[in-house]
């Protein structure tokens, strides 16, 4: 028999107090992380040395060409990527198209190849002069002009859509899987044809996912940097993301104008998030639960080869061609379409590894950033997720809302805000070190970790924790002995994903790096600007190898978790 509760122990404020302390501490951290750069963008856009001014904003609104380009790329990419992702989701989740599970894995790969590398590869394939497709067309068909020109608005939109289609695919296929097939079956039983049931039941139920993914893509493409930098800048086609980069890299740097652009992007995305919330509020569905159903497979008959063709075409354009081009360019002595001139060796790899001075520094920085970002987000995210799911207080709602906010902040705007907040801040000298990049990465990717870990905690029956408390474990003991081990599979998968994502981040890195704090994606971009295509390809191929190795590890761990 253990000791009875003593009077002294009885006077201790109990778990609720500790919970509140944890919630308040986390709220403070998240508020500093997310809100400070946002405020800084506001301050930056409205102020210069002379005080309050609206010149930056009027300048921005006056540059109608860039505004138009940004809107074209934003809307075009959103429509194309959401349509493509939704189509792929319906084909791979709801029809009897062959090789579905394998294709599903391939369709997700562009997420890991990154928009930057996809754009680089397509630039080699489709630039008006010197693009491989055009060179081949000229030598084979004797054309004098160019067949395709991806250095254009259309090129930017197409390549960005190819790169971002996996996001809507993920969300919409998740929604389709989470839908009880009985809902559609009951529509059929009550007289609806397959298409009518799909149109009147399935589509409206998938609408939140559709809207959500459209919004996500729109926010991403509105502040897009990599694709327009690679495909647009050579043709002097500027969008907000590249414009911010240009303004900051002109001499003297036009910081407040850049902040004006950042503010505009923020206002637009905030308005859209509010609009989405308003639309979804009026139709709240509980039909899509966390439960996974076995979706009803529609027999498409003679349409099977057509649907298979659509998916294969996407995989070809978004995965096979870019990766093959990168590998080829990494191995060939120089870019040419004449087979007689081609020879293959590893000299570009040797150059990148041993001669190019930035590689090792960038690799080390990227590695450190990846490890730290993933670890910090997992720790912070798990604690936040636990507070959000388990407590009823204001702090929980605050954490949920502010923690998810970075999803609606284009990373280049976040970087702008951080730049504004921390340049010249003497008591926290993180600018010029990887510290400021770490802050950017942790803030930008926090929602990914938070979402994954929240759903993991939500799946834990609260009584598992209650049972531990009643059995004598303290709050922290319960987190350590029960919550941590039970969310371990999600933690490992989330950690690896975050590690990969941080290795690839470019949109905020490009504004925040300095010579000693350069990272891999910036090194790739530098090689692009220097025109050193073969070295770029070699570096990219190495980056892809690391990424896919990490992915293979996750896949193995998932299999083990399922088997256990």
């Amino acid at each position, binding site marked *: 028999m253990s000791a009875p509760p003593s009077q002294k122990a*009885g006077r201790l404020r109990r778990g609720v107090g500790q919970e509140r302390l944890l919630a308040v501490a986390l709220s403070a951290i998240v508020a500093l992380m997310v809100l400070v750069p946002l405020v800084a963008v506001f301050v930056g856009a409205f102020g210069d040395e002379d005080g309050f001014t609206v010149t930056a904003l009027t300048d921005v609104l006056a540059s109608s060409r860039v505004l138009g380009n940004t809107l074209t790329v934003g809307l075009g990419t959103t429509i194309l990527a959401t349509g493509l992702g939704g189509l792929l989701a319906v084909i791979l989740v709801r029809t009897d198209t062959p090789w579905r599970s394998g294709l599903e894995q391939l369709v997700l790969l562009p997420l890991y190849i990154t928009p930057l590398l996809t754009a680089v590869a397509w630039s080699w394939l489709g630039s008006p002069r010197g693009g491989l497709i055009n060179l081949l067309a000229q030598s084979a068909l004797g054309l004098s002009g160019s067949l395709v020109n991806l250095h254009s608005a259309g090129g930017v939109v197409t390549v960005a859509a190819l790169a971002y289609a996996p996001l809507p695919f993920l969300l919409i296929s998740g929604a389709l899987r989470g839908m009880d097939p009985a809902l559609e079956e009951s529509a059929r039983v009550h007289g609806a044809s397959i298409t009518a049931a799909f149109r009147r039941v399935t589509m409206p139920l998938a609408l939140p996912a559709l809207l959500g993914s459209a919004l996500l893509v729109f926010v991403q493409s509105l502040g897009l940097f990599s694709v327009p930098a690679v495909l647009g800048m050579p043709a002097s086609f500027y969008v907000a993301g590249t414009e911010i980069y240009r303004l900051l890299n002109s001499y003297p740097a036009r910081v407040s104008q850049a902040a004006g652009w950042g503010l505009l992007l923020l206002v637009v995305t905030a308005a859209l998030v509010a609009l989405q919330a308003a639309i979804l509020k009026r139709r709240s569905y509980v039909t899509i639960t966390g439960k996974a159903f076995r979706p009803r497979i529609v027999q498409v008959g003679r349409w099977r080869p057509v649907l298979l063709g659509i998916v294969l075409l996407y995989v070809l354009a978004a995965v096979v061609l870019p990766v093959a081009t990168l590998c080829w360019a990494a191995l060939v002595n120089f870019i040419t379409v004449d087979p007689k001139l081609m020879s293959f060796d590893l000299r570009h790899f040797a150059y990148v590894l041993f001669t190019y001075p930035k590689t090792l520094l960038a690799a080390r920085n990227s590695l450190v950033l990846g490890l730290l970002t993933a670890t910090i987000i997992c720790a912070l995210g798990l604690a936040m997720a636990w507070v959000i799911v388990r407590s*009823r207080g204001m702090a929980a709602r605050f954490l949920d809302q502010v923690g998810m906010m970075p999803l609606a902040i284009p990373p280049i705007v976040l970087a702008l805000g951080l730049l504004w907040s921390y340049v010249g801040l003497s008591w926290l000298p993180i600018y010029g070190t990887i510290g400021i990049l770490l802050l950017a990465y942790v803030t930008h990717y926090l929602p990914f970790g938070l979402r994954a870990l929240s759903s993991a905690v939500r799946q834990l029956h609260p*009584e598992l924790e*209650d049972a531990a408390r*009643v*059995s004598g*474990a303290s709050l922290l003991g319960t987190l350590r002995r029960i919550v941590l081990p039970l969310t371990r599979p999600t933690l490992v998968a989330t950690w690896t994903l975050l590690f990969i994502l941080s290795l690839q981040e470019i949109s905020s890195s490009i504004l925040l790096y300095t010579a000693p704090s350069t990272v891999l994606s910036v090194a790739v971009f530098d090689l692009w600007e220097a025109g050193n295509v073969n070295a770029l390809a070699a570096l990219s191929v190495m980056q892809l190898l690391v990424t896919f190795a990490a992915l293979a590890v996750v896949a193995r761990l998932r299999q083990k978790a399922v088997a256990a």
Partner: protein
Amino acid sequence: MSPAFVSVEDLVIAYGDVRAVDKVSFGIVAGEQVTLLGPSGCGKTTTLRAVAGLERPRDGRILIDGKPAFDGSAGIDAPPEKRNLSMVFQSYAIWPHMTVFENVAFPFRVRGRPTAELKPAVDKALELVDLARFADRPATMLSGGQQQRVALARAVAFGTKLVLLDEPLSNLDAQLRLQMRDELADLRKRLGFTALYVTHDQEEAFSLSDFVVVMRGGRIEQAGRPQEIYRNPRTRFVAEFLGVRNILPCELAHGGGEVRLPDQTVLRGREVEPGAPAEAPAIAFRPGDVRLGDQPGPGQGGSGVVTRSLFVGDVQHVFLKSGPIGLCAHVRPRPGLEEGKTLFWRVAPEDCLILRK
């Protein structure tokens, strides 16, 4: 009466303006079992969780073994781990990342007890619930009934004097529930712990407890020994909840002991609360106490037309209608109970309860 081992005094638990538990008081004598009985949402589980320290009350007092675990006015609120009790959860709450043995050993482990010390106690608890041979199994590879036993073993292994049980049998199928009910009674008799039990099942409550507290809307509706509550439900709510299906509104006649039904039938019955104000007087009797005949017989009663007659096995449920009143009788199945027949019903005065609210 011996002093209470647990006493709950004027407990109030509120979420915003909603009072989930409103001034609830009861005590548990050492070694006895008290059951909180009521429909879902009546506050019974919330009360139990407050005793465990898993809900934070707004006001009131909870004393366990003479020491305050919660005291609203003194600002005392001991965390669950300091209250020295154990609990069986509705979901069993078996930790899936541990073996059966480790689940049961957990209360020892968190208190830093060495394996050599805890092993005999854990082994003994597993033997008590007949799971010794599953000790090294991952806890997830057990059936529902077995998980339930692990939860029981974990609750009794450490030897806390107070065990809380939150609808422990509700997730089991009917047959297993009966079996586990008997095992639970045995276990408590053998180990002698004090128990607070929550259920919505009256049979479970009556068969296992020394004292039953019927709750409704966060308040105590009636409390007493099982036989007493069964025989004398004091309100319409308790009567309904305990399966008294015939509750007929009526007028009180002759100052007490006699009522008049809307169809003018006069019935005598027992007054449950003679002095209380007659807010909504009704006469109540169980369908099983009603007898049916083809002819008017001796004793009190009336006649009615059979509107529905359901054969459910051991008994026939016969529904009668007589003018504005309808009633139900459970009788042995026989010919002559068909719909449309006119039958005469009788009920003994000692089986009739006169309710005043």
